[in-house]
């Protein structure tokens, strides 16, 4: 059965802390792994990863994929209260098409 598992389910940190969010997966027809930030409604795209070992960075956020061990991490450095959200990991496993299977998400709360 295809599945995506995220950990931890939730965490509380203080501003300035660094956090690491984990995502492991077992899917057939892996195409890519995507990270989204969801604050209220629409998941907002963060990263798409297709190749192992290549770090993607955007400001204080970075992510990397390990296709051998079937996991990805999302790092957030110098956290701010605006980083508080649910972070969703999804795997595109649709083969020639785009179909996503999501984890349950990690709820991050950043306290001032």
């Amino acid at each position, binding site marked *: 059965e295809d599945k*995506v598992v995220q950990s931890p389910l939730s965490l509380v940190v203080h501003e300035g802390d660094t956090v690491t969010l984990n995502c492991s997966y077992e899917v057939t027809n892996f*195409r*890519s792994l*995507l990270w*989204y930030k969801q604050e209220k*409604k*629409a*998941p*907002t*795209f963060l990263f*798409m990863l*297709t190749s192992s070992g290549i770090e993607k960075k955007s400001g204080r956020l970075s992510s990397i994929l390990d296709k051998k061990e079937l996991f990805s991490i999302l790092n957030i450095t110098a956290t701010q209260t605006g980083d508080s959200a649910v972070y*969703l990991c*999804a795997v*595109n496993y*649709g083969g*020639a*098409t*785009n*179909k*996503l*299977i*999501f*984890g*349950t*998400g990690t709820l991050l709360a950043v306290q001032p």
Partner: protein
Amino acid sequence: DAGVTQSPTHLIKTRGQQVTLRCSPKSGHDTVSWYQQALGQGPQFIFQYYEEEERQRGNFPDRFSGHQFPNYSSELNVNALLLGDSALYLCASSRHFSGNTIYFGEGSWLTVV
């Protein structure tokens, strides 16, 4: 460049009723997928439309149906609503046969009472 747009944003329906949700994909995108997100859960794939046909379907009953129009916009219909259908319904937009990013709309919050 308009992103993915959905309507309505919120609606309340009674058990047994029917609902229609609408989605316009991002400019340049030809594929629309629908997802259901229950509270505290990740989105779950309902189905995908491309070239006005349902191409793939997740584990949802036939009460869930859809349509895609020539302009690539799409509708999601749910018949005989159950309390358990209460969720955020998300529309995802992409280009078919492409590994490009998948973008989501703001979603439609459906409450069934």
